[in-house]
């Protein structure tokens, strides 16, 4: 079949990487932007944390069509498929690339490859582990160990990041993510042939700015907790009843 012929080539695999990567890039940006609600405090109208309300909003979003949390699950399925496609094609490409270069020149010097482009596979594999941990930490609460309460998003995040190893691991993972994006966010345009002389250097710059924005946005949460920029979760604040 034509589609499998396409995937069999290295370029086809790369296109799969780029398209699934684009979905994941979109998600990462939306996730980061949503996370900033962590700093928005209590909603005076309802007396609940705005961050908790945002969590509820994500479950209720599109419920007229998909039912309660239906859209959220749809998004999760799409993201999971994108992640699986990204990982499988990435690992298979890395294998092919390694086989194609069995011997490296003595003192091979790189002039344009950088830490980001050289670490894509390692950073990617690490991020895969991080994603599994992150879901078990803040979505299911399985690895939270600090009084995880479903729906109390603000308290869960705050208490989660109070643990220094957790915050450190999180920030380290965000360094990996930013490095991955530093190369990947530009690379995906090159792979689908959307670079041109006009775009090229600007696109690289935008991708790099994007990586920094994502890094700072995500890291602002654990840092905010540690420097005391956000208030300790208050037990008197009303819990959002989400349905």
């Amino acid at each position, binding site marked *: 079949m034509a589609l499998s012929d396409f995937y*069999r080539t290295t370029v086809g695999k790369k296109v799969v990487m780029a398209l699934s990567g684009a979905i994941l890039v979109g998600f990462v940006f939306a996730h980061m932007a949503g996370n900033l609600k962590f700093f928005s405090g209590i909603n005076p109208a309802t007396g609940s944390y705005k961050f908790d309300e945002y969590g509820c909003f994500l479950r209720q979003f599109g419920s007229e069509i998909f039912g309660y949390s239906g859209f959220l699950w749809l998004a999760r399925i799409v993201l999971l498929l994108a992640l699986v496609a990204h990982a499988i094609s990435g690992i298979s490409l890395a294998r092919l690339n390694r086989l194609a270069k069995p011997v490296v020149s*003595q003192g091979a010097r790189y002039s344009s490859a950088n830490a980001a482009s050289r670490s894509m596979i390692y950073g990617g594999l690490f991020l895969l582990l991080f994603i599994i941990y992150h879901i078990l930490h803040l979505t299911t609460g399985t690895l939270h160990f600090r009084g995880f309460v479903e729906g109390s998003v603000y308290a869960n995040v705050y208490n989660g990041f109070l643990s220094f190893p957790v915050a450190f691991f999180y920030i380290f993972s965000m360094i990996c993510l930013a490095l991955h994006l530093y190369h990947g966010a530009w690379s995906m345009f090159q*792979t689908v042939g959307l670079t041109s002389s006009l775009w090229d250097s600007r696109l690289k710059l935008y991708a790099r700015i994007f990586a920094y924005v994502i890094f700072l946005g995500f890291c602002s949460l654990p840092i905010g907790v540690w420097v005391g920029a956000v208030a300790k979760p208050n037990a008197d604040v009303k819990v959002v009843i989400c349905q």
Partner: protein
Amino acid sequence: MNFKLKIWRQKLGNSQGFFSDYLISNIDPDTSFLEMLDILNEQLVIQGEDPVAFEHDCREGICGSCSMTINGRPHGPNRLTTACQLKMRSFADGAEIVIEPWRAKAFPIVKDLVTDRSAFDRIQQAGGYVSVNTGAACDANTIPVEKESADLSFYAASCIGCGACVAACPNGSAMLFTAAKVAQLSLLPQGAPERSHRAIAMVERMDQENFGGCTNHGECQAACPKDISIRFISDLNREFITAQAKKIYGKRASRRS
């Protein structure tokens, strides 16, 4: 000038290779790199040793034969030059110079610094041509060609197929070579009818020849003696995607009539 050379010696493709040290002295600073190797070989022959096998032909940077990695860089330390255009004055007196063949699975070593780069020929044969009827040559400018396209095609055509891109690439990928060869023809009206077949056939052949995939490091363009840009790779990707889309969707339309 005096140099300490560390050269990769390998009797045959399947034999074990190793680095051998040679001292060479009284080299004029304006000697070319290949002339320096010639001088070394003369000395080796006099000493009854096996001379170092290396490829060379035009010695003016247009044939793409002189494939060797010098101090970890294909064609040596200078930009936009081939090994034959490199002069010994580019090195410090007494410097150690490491000389190796291209390193890539797709370029097996034949002997010493000589690699078999026929994989490039087979990529070219897969689709790097235009089919034209023979007969009297048609008048010049019979087919109008856009100036921008003609210039870009000329630029792509300046690829000499030396293989430095593959040697420089951490993945041993031949995307820059293939992209240049595809662009050179597909940019012109004469190359348009076969463009879909060309993009698919050349990429598939490239993969079959055990070249790696492109991860956009940009090492190839940095090493290219002809300054071929990785924008051609972006163009090849687009060309390939379009060709595949035509293959998948084009058939349906044609069967309806």
